[in-house]
């Protein structure tokens, strides 16, 4: 498959606001991304503007404040997707097509039950939530992440295990919690943990390196099959070295750390 044949649906509603940079990430790699409003997938748009999810190879849920996040982050967007698209979406995931949710997108995937999804592709009820940061406020800061996945997750095939990358974080609700006291252990057993927040030495160090207080510094997880990824930090904001926060102190390559995630997606789709 040629890169330009990889069709990416960058899904948005009102308040989705990281669609441009998410679009750019795929564009830079030569793919064919499209910004699609949910109304275009569920028959609410004029005919010429209507689209179908099954025509896409990748689904990306960008960051933002979908519908304002006035209830629980991601809850409204998730409810709208669930009522309009759950059959299409379940099929999409079961076909092992990649689904990535960044920041608000991660919150939506959890609300949708696509993560952590221990029992089935899409749990009927959310089994976890991204809770208010320990600091009780929005935190915009660069975060260092260690790839802790042992090989299950398709989104990190281009990042060696144990390597530390920088993706910036910017959220008020990023602490992954569940009623299940063994959440982290189960994730770990299934190789569903993808990224942990670490310090500049690659060690888990708590706040501010972990900006939200997420248990065991978990920053991003995938589903058991490894084709749905949700993470709070923003790889699409680190496509170029020159948007890294400390690039003026020296750098080895012009590519930003975040691009590896999107390269991994492209590798998977192109086979």
């Amino acid at each position, binding site marked *: 498959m040629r890169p330009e044949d990889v069709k990416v649906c960058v899904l948005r509603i*009102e308040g989705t606001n990281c669609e441009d940079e998410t679009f750019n990430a795929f564009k830079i790699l030569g793919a064919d991304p499209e910004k699609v*409003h949910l109304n275009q997938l569920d028959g609410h748009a004029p005919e010429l503007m209507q689209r179908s999810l099954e025509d896409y190879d990748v689904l990306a849920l960008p960051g933002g404040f979908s519908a304002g*996040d006035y209830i629980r982050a991601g809850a409204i967007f998730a409810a709208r997707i669930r009522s309009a698209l759950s059959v299409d979406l379940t099929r999409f995931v079961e076909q092992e097509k990649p689904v990535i949710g960044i920041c608000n997108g991660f919150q939506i995937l959890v609300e949708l039950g696509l993560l952590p999804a221990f029992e089935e592709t899409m749990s009927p009820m959310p089994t976890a939530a991204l809770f208010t940061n320990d600091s009780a406020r*929005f935190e*915009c800061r*660069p975060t260092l992440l260690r790839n802790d996945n042992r090989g299950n997750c398709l989104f990190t095939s281009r990042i060696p295990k144990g390597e530390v990358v920088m993706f910036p974080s*910017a959220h008020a609700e990023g602490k992954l919690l569940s009623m299940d006291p063994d959440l982290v252990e189960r994730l770990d057993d299934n190789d569903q943990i993808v990224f942990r927040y670490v310090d500049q030495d690659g060690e888990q160090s708590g706040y501010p390196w972990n900006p939200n207080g997420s248990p065991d510094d978990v920053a991003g997880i995938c589903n058991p099959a490894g084709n749905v990824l949700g993470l709070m930090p923003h790889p699409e*904001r680190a496509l170029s070295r*020159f948007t890294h926060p400390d690039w003026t102190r020296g750098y080895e390559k012009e590519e930003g750390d975040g691009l590896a995630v999107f390269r991994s997606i492209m590798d998977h789709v192109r086979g």
Partner: protein
Amino acid sequence: MAYDRLLRKRPLPFPLTEVDILSASDDELMTMSRDMGLSMSLDEMHTVRDYFHKEGRVPTDIELQSLGQAWSEHCCYKSSRVILKEFLLGIEHPDVLSRGDAGVMVFDDDYAYALRIESHNHPSAIEPYGGAATGIGGILRDVVCMGAQPVALIDPLCFGPVDRKEELPPGVKHPRYLVSGVVAGIRDYGNRVGVPTLSGGFFFDPRYTGNCLVNVGCVGIVPRDEITQNFVGGPGEVMILCGGRTGRDGIHGVTFASAELKETSDEDSRGAVQLGDPITKEPLMHACLEVNRRKLITGMKDLGGGGLSCVVGEMALEAGCGSEVRLDRVPLKEEGLAPWEIWVSESQERMMLAAKEENVPEILDIFRTWDVLATPVARTIPQKRTRVFWDDELIFDMDLEFLTGGPLYCRPHTVSKPEGLEVDEWPELPDRNRVLLSLLSDLNVASKEWAIRQYDHEVRGATVLRPLTGHINRVGPGDASVIQPVLGRWKGLGISVGCNPWFTALDPYNGGLSSLDEACRNLVATGCRPHSLSNCLNFGNPEKPDRLGQFREAVRGFGELARHLNLPIPSGNVSLYNEAPGGVVLPTPMIMGLGRIDDVRKAVSSDMKHEGSALYLVGKTKKEMGGSLIYRLFGGKGGQVPGVEFDRLSLSMNLLLKAMDKGLVRSCHDCSDGGLAVAVAEMCIAGDIGAELNLGPISGKDLDVALFSESNSRWVAEVPVGKEGEFETLMGDLVQRIGRSGGTKLIAPVAGIDLKVEEMRQRWSEPLAKIMG
């Protein structure tokens, strides 16, 4: 009511009142102006009376309300226009592409950037969260209606001391409450619409206690062939109102902004504060930009001050025509609004589009896809009149040139001689370690990280230099912020703010100069060449001659230097009447500077990079202590306020930019509050590297001047080992070598300064966070 006999309700199913001003006495005219919230003077009421006398009929309430809006200081700049024209307007530059609601400047051959800064002071003093949020909303619309995608927000803010213990004047809210509300308002609106907040500033002084200043700036980017206009294409077009519904929020906002704050402003004017809704704004921006991109509209303009009453007339008149409005079609938040309320409401998140009839269906389709309301409400006509209908009843019929003409005043002003020329009383200073630590922990210098981290400054993924710089989680203050606004192009845009209200209070002319000097310094410190400016001029009541004198002198200074540097000012805003119980604000000429850099990979940040680099001071230090932070902190009096040597500033900027382009500068920081000592300390804090300073054979007061004077046009530059000769040859006598980087302390042996970087970091980092929690 004293003028009841002059009112006549028209027998209609909606409230409409005719007001017989033709037979009103002067007393009745003034009562009318006050009670109806028109804020017009007697002379202005006479002019209105004469107009309707000529028309041969009495006006309706909606017509009078419309005049009150259009003729307010906020809308027509009646006190400031003469002065602006003399000093600021008309700096011609081939790169100016538009002077619309926002200015538009050339970015490169294919792209342009839009810029504007304005105030939202009075609403924020009453209701800080909503006031600040809707300030952001308004400035975003100004940029969007040029066809530009907003890419940066800028929020300079002025408050009373947040740690104030004394009792407050009646009706005044505590600065800590205001800071917390304003920051939350900016955070919740800016973050939700997905535009990074990249620059700003905090200014703390008791004189802002009663009337805080909330200035909001925005920068956008637009392909040059998509720049649009803020007016209709001609007669026979449809005007489409889109976005939010219209309600009773934000009625009389502009007249409220054009008077001093009073003890009772909170109760009287809370209705003048609009309610913001970023989740209507976010898709509204997308939809507006999309219909513009598809060339479906002839123009667009935002509904800001004065609401429909201003936008409808201005959009039509600019194209030499008028319009007929169907006011009953405007979507409302609630039933029962009188026509005049709908007409002047400043409800947020609304834009007006103008389009040819045949494009209307496609426009409405696009808005429907975004779930955003869009309603055709008016049609343009060849006559220069606005006619408003409710159902079939004509309720408003006015000549547009009269309506939007507004009065123009040449008010008296007085200029007093700056005090510092006679008095210069040196303060008692403790040892210099303590002086430096006090300066670093003064709220005007100390870290603003508490606020900055609550603002998303990374969204859009184009931020190259940010407000905080250095190691991850160990940062210091940056200068300008730099973005790379067009994907795949290395060209960058720098954004800075400059203002020194303390200088301006003591010497308005030099204050105006200094504010612009600072905006330029910040840009140059990052490698960006200053390119254009926007300003928000916050002053007191212009009807008081001394206030207007300050305004005039500050504008004169700012304008003369801008002209000398050939920096156009394609947009700007004036905010007068910033007075409250407890006094007038510091005169505050807030200047937003935009600069360009050809290759962001050459941008320079302020954090010290290496051990053993040579440190240079660029620029000349003078005994100009008036208004300086050490005078304010330790009780100095008077003193010369720093001036600017125009040619020297130009030359310094040119050569420093050249040095940066050649890679001779590893870090650079401008000298502002607290002078050279604070600048070097901040570079150490950001880079986590110490420095040793040697300022030559000077001592006593001369040494204090060298360390703490705030003379303009100065920077500290770090030059790597081996490049010193090349740097010195290029810069000539503009630079002085002042030391070397290295170690874990800042040391100036002759001055007795010996401080651990870690201690300085702590003193600089903690104050604001400690107070705000």
